[in-house]
């Protein structure tokens, strides 16, 4: 079994596959060490769900790196996978071995996601130095030991942006503003409190960057209020002097390799279409973690990675039989997307299954999450509130197996009671 990427998703898959009996499991990682992006996420808040402990990112990574070594997972570091064929032939390269060719019985994708950049937003203005994604700034400050600027504006209220606002302030920089184009926060509420409010950093909703100014280096950004169609409102411009603009404007699953294999991707998640075992549209290929859809918590990435790893181990051992009938899941009222996109009703005979979803709009009051099968309600739960930045899950009980055998489509809606 080959795992592409040694972050939390890939490591969880590798360890789970070894525990399920896969004999040879190799993690191929392009960085010089395992752990993925967790190594630069030095803040705490990781592990409460998966490990029952509150750990900083590197400590959470360390736990799974150690587990991988203990369970006999092999690793190939500093190695870039260039291409994978549908027959699972893997071409990779590193500076020690040149080009390597490997053949895998099953492949687990664990490439994670990457940040949207200035190019994805098309912000007008000059192109000076001093425009970074929040994650790049995080790596510079937390791993390499460089401060990317002194006076910051942060565009986007994603978690990494807010966490960097706090980090930069603690390191002596001034964070002038966090601007968010949507009328609500895009990251976790707790980060608004502990990263912005604690340090008196203003958050301005329904505002974005209209223009970047500066010749050699960023000298100012011009912010502007937007209307409900997200178009700039003339007369609301504000020029904010600063030397650095950080972008925390969303993450996109990284699927160049999957696409070249011919794996079907979901345009809503930008990740592979998966079944309840994290199997993709091409037999023998599985997907673990943020490469499928962007999770809010690493703990869920770990659990999803374990599912993918076990499925891949079963595939290698010939324990996977193709589904006779599968249900399509789809998004209803106030739901942006649902994962997995396919569900084999027979999987419920082995235990409860979980649907994961993201809402389109926040609702700060009690809501009902309703699952219907061909229009008939089969499961529901109450949430005290829903927020686009926080994933919602709903369980399907094993008893539903029988009634879902003849159904075609599952729809999930989030309704006000």
């Amino acid at each position, binding site marked *: 079994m080959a795992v592409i990427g040694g972050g939390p998703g890939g490591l969880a898959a590798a360890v789970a596959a070894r525990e399920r009996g896969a004999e040879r499991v190799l993690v191929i990682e392009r960085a010089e060490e395992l752990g993925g992006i967790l190594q630069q996420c*030095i803040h705490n*808040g990781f592990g409460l769900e998966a490990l029952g402990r509150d750990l900083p990112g590197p*400590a959470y*990574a*360390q736990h799974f790196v150690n587990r991988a070594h203990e369970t006999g997972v092999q690793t190939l570091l500093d190695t870039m996978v260039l291409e994978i064929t549908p027959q699972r032939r893997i071409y990779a390269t590193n500076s020690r071995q040149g080009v390597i060719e490997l053949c895998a019985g099953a492949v687990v994708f664990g490439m994670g996601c990457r940040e949207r950049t200035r190019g994805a937003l098309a912000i007008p203005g000059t192109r000076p130095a001093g425009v970074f994604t929040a994650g790049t700034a995080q790596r510079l400050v937390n791993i390499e030991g460089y401060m990317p600027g002194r006076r910051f504006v942060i565009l986007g209220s994603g978690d990494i942006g807010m966490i960097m606002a706090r980090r930069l302030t603690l390191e002596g920089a001034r964070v002038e503003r966090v601007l968010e184009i949507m009328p609500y926060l895009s990251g976790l509420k707790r980060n*608004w409190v502990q990263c912005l409010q604690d340090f008196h950093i203003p958050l301005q909703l329904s505002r974005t960057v209209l223009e970047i100014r500066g010749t050699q280096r960023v000298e100012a950004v011009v912010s502007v209020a937007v209307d409900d169609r997200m178009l700039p409102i003339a007369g609301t411009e504000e020029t904010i002097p600063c030397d650095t603009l950080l972008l925390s404007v969303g993450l996109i699953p990284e699927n160049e390799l999957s696409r070249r294999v011919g794996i079907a991707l979901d345009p809503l998640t930008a990740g592979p279409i998966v079944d309840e075992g994290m199997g993709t549209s091409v037999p023998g290929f599985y997907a673990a973690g943020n490469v499928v859809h962007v999770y809010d918590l690493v703990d869920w990435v770990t659990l999803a990675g374990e599912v993918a790893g076990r499925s891949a181990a079963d595939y290698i051992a010939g324990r996977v039989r193709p589904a006779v009938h599968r249900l399509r899941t789809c998004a209803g009222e106030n739901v942006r997307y649902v994962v997995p996109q396919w569900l084999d009703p027979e999987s419920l005979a082995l235990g409860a299954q979980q649907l994961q979803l993201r809402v389109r709009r926040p609702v700060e009051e009690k809501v009902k999450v309703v699952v219907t099968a061909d229009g008939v309600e089969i499961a529901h739960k109450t949430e005290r509130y829903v927020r686009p930045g926080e994933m919602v899950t709903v369980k399907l009980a094993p008893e539903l197996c029988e009634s879902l055998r003849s159904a075609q489509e599952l729809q999930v809606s989030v309704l006000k009671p």
Partner: protein
Amino acid sequence: MIEKKSLICVTCPMGCRLDVSLDGGSVVAVEGEGCKRGLAYAQDEIKDPRRVLTTTVTIFDGIHPLLPVHTTAAVPMARIPELVAALRKVSVTAPVRVGDVVAADVLDSGIDVLASRDIQRR
């Protein structure tokens, strides 16, 4: 006079909204907590707000120039700048193991600062 205050619990990523009733500055009731930790958080947040501090210290001879570190418990928020300044003067030498004590009993609080990961020698 009962005063109402709304807080967001930061103990875990759930971010529960806590509706706190105060009488003369003391917490008399909390609603909305998802677990027991929310009650303790509300008490602390009104009287003595505390946060876990995570930062980095210099590491010599390691595969990276910085070692991520964290406090073993939440420290008084007002003293965090002081603690950050003190940790700026701390340095260690590789190898370091996750959980190694980097600074003991900081701010005379009984709280230690620990390494957040292993860092091998370069």
